[in-house]
């Protein structure tokens, strides 16, 4: 009767987490917007390609009518196969990360709001199992969102004219979605941690959103010596502005933790849309092993901090303020 199984508890908490998240209107709204934008991105990609192709064909007919026998090759042939995924990098950087913050925030705030923590915390469940269950649940929800995004994007890419998607391209795309999942998990854990440690609900949301703003906009600016055109766009700029003393120092200090920048760069290389195209998956990650290690260590650190914070959390009379 009183047999307690730590892994069993973790799965129980994870499944409750998934059930609760999928019942929330906020979660549905933001996920819906994200998936709609993914679908819109696919449509825009298809529309752009179709229009460009139609213009090329019309031009060829016109040139032939003018007596020009040699026409240039269709420029769409030189467009990277996964070019239509470029918009997704921006969407994940902006909406995806924000969605993850909100999911992580609500994951623990739901319990704080309901006041059930006193009843939960007298159960024979170690706090680490509780946090692990939460993270597992959050991870599975994010994974399912990213899977839906992947299915929509990959399926639609097969309908693009003149784009021959190979198995290799699909592999690159899948690794890009896995990498994006890790990036979103980082923000979900930020939301979870601050939902545990913050005194008020507004502060619990405000701090991770500030972090998101910092990681997405401020750090890349400082760490790259102000190259705003390359901030959200995975296209590598050809001419860097000269570094002043301040930006040179900031670059050395902030570059390793500039996760938003690393996400954009690595994603661009995975999708073959940056200038260093045609890299294998291994080459991409071996070229960015420090950045990948930084991301993984950050995720682990946030998980450990959440477990430590929960151990010190006093659930009595914890009715959070709006």
């Amino acid at each position, binding site marked *: *009767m*009183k*047999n*307690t*199984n730590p892994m*069993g*508890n973790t799965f*129980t*908490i994870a499944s*409750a987490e998934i059930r*609760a998240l999928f*019942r929330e209107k906020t979660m549905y709204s933001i996920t819906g917007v994200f998936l709609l934008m993914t679908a819109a991105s696919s449509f825009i990609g298809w529309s752009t390609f179709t229009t460009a192709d139609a213009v090329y064909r019309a031009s060829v007919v016109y040139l032939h009518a003018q007596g020009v026998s040699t026409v240039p090759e269709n420029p769409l042939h030189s467009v990277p196969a996964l070019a239509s995924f470029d918009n997704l990098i921006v969407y994940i950087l902006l909406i995806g990360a924000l969605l993850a913050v909100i999911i992580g925030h609500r994951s623990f705030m*739901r319990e704080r709001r*309901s*006041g*059930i923590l*006193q*009843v*939960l*915390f*007298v*159960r*024979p*469940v*170690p706090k680490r199992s509780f946090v692990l269950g939460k993270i597992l649940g959050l991870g599975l929800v994010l994974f399912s969102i990213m899977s839906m995004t992947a299915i929509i994007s990959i399926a639609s890419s097969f309908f693009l004219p003149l784009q021959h998607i190979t198995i290799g391209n699909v592999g690159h795309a899948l690794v890009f979605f896995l990498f994006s999942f890790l990036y979103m998990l980082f923000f979900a854990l930020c939301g979870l941690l601050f939902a545990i440690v913050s005194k008020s609900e507004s502060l619990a949301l405000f701090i991770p959103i500030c972090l998101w703003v910092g990681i997405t906009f401020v750090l890349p600016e400082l760490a790259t010596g102000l190259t705003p055109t390359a901030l959200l766009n995975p296209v590598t700029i050809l001419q860097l502005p000269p570094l002043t003393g301040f930006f040179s120092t900031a670059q050395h200090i902030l570059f390793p933790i500039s996760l938003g920048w690393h996400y954009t760069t690595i994603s661009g290389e995975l999708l073959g849309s940056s200038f260093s195209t045609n890299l294998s998956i291994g080459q991409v990650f071996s070229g960015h092993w420090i950045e990948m290690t930084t991301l993984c260590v950050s995720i682990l650190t946030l998980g450990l901090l959440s477990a430590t914070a929960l151990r010190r959390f*006093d*659930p*009595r009379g914890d009715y959070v303020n709006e």
Partner: protein
Amino acid sequence: MNTTTIKPIITAHALTKQYKDTLALDSLDLNINKGEIFGFLGHNGAGKTTTVSILTTLIAPTAGNATVCGFDTQKESIEVQKRIGYLPENVKFYDSLTAYENLEYLAKLSGVKNPKEKIHEVLVFLEFTGIENKKLGEFSKGMRQRIGIAQAILHDPEVLFLDEPTSGLDPMGIKKLRDIIIKLNKEKGMTIFMNTHLLSEVAKTCTTIGVLNQGKLIYCDSLAHTMERFHDESSLEEIYFTLGEKH
């Protein structure tokens, strides 16, 4: 009551809790035997909820130690948690889930092997069937309190902690709760630790009482002895005030 031959199921030794400038518990010593219904009396802020919070492992004491069922509440908290049930004051649940979903989740976390069967058994025991598929958000205070009792006894705990269980209940709700507490004690042999303000309920329910005043235990004895000792007092309320004045 022969306290020398029975090993206490709940003990507290020099239990102290300091919150910044406030001393909530001041070297509390307490022994409660198995099978008792212990009524813990005291005015607001006396330290009753702090005591229960330490005994239920929710918070750590600043000094001293406590055991429940022979296990230290801090060093062996999981062992304690396996053996206790707890009904906090103003118990809360997931309002968007049904009564069954709430109880199933809590039963699984308590290690109950067959939650469905156990939930049914507990609801029958509490005479509270037919509500399983209703969402908790639709429940009255009295109904929530009974679901609160249900979640606390799902895993057949040896000790049940109740913090102001009658708070906010109407007279009928109070009577029902009193009957449940006595039934749990008599039929399931549970030791019950109850924080309360209602002295009349203590007189009707408890076998032992303790009075806490400004974090100090100023009185602890069986209800029968108490009535004998204060024979010139007409009610338990007067005994309570008399004790308070002495300290």
